[in-house]
């Protein structure tokens, strides 16, 4: 992902974190044992932030994920003599891909 990817990643992260902080707010007071983020950890329910380099790294991680998916699928479809990556090729590499990330 390039530079505009970083903004995008930031937007996605913010969305998830805001969603979570709203959830936390709602559960405040009630004993919520299923929430992983303990109620005691934050008195202020300010949602998490990320620094610029961490976002760059996250977008690099996602770029690697996509690149890896395509490359592995390409290997399979190459072995089958196809010139286009089809869903069946992706299916073959999916389990290991998900384990690797």
């Amino acid at each position, binding site marked *: 992902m390039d530079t505009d990817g970083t903004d995008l990643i930031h937007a996605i992260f913010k969305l998830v974190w805001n969603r979570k902080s709203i959830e936390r707010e709602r559960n405040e007071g009630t004993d919520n044992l299923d929430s992983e983020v303990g109620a005691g950890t934050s008195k202020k329910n300010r949602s998490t932030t990320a620094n610029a380099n961490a976002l760059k790294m996250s977008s690099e991680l996602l770029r690697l994920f996509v690149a890896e998916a395509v490359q592995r699928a390409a290997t399979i479809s190459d072995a089958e003599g196809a010139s286009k990556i*089809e869903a069946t090729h992706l299916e073959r590499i999916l389990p290991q891909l998900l384990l690797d990330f």
Partner: protein
Amino acid sequence: MDERDYSDFEREEEDESTSNVLKDRFRLSVIKIAEAEGKKNNMEVSEQVMGCISDLAFKFSEQLAKDLELFAQHAGRKSVNMDDVILSAHRNEHLASSLRLYSSELKGKEPQPEKKRKKTSKKEGKTPSAALHIS
């Protein structure tokens, strides 16, 4: 009570619409990357596969966001830093080490906080070799 439910409902709807916008933008980025990667291997990528990969990557990024939040909070921080990202890849040594390399690269650049377009092109030229083969 009713009022609260209503505002919740509204908020959820808004949440959903921003999430859809983000998903579309994300898909565009994924298509760009996947096409570049496909070209390198002389492969076309079918529409269906593009859709699958971008959905996968989107789910992955949501999961990543949750992980990073937990890691940062476990360390008593409110802000996610580079170590958290490296930690999120700890299951895969190759991945972790290539991220570590990338992080030291970023650290080296730190003196100049202004990120320039030039650097991106430089990065893109370099990263192909960083792609991992771990199958």
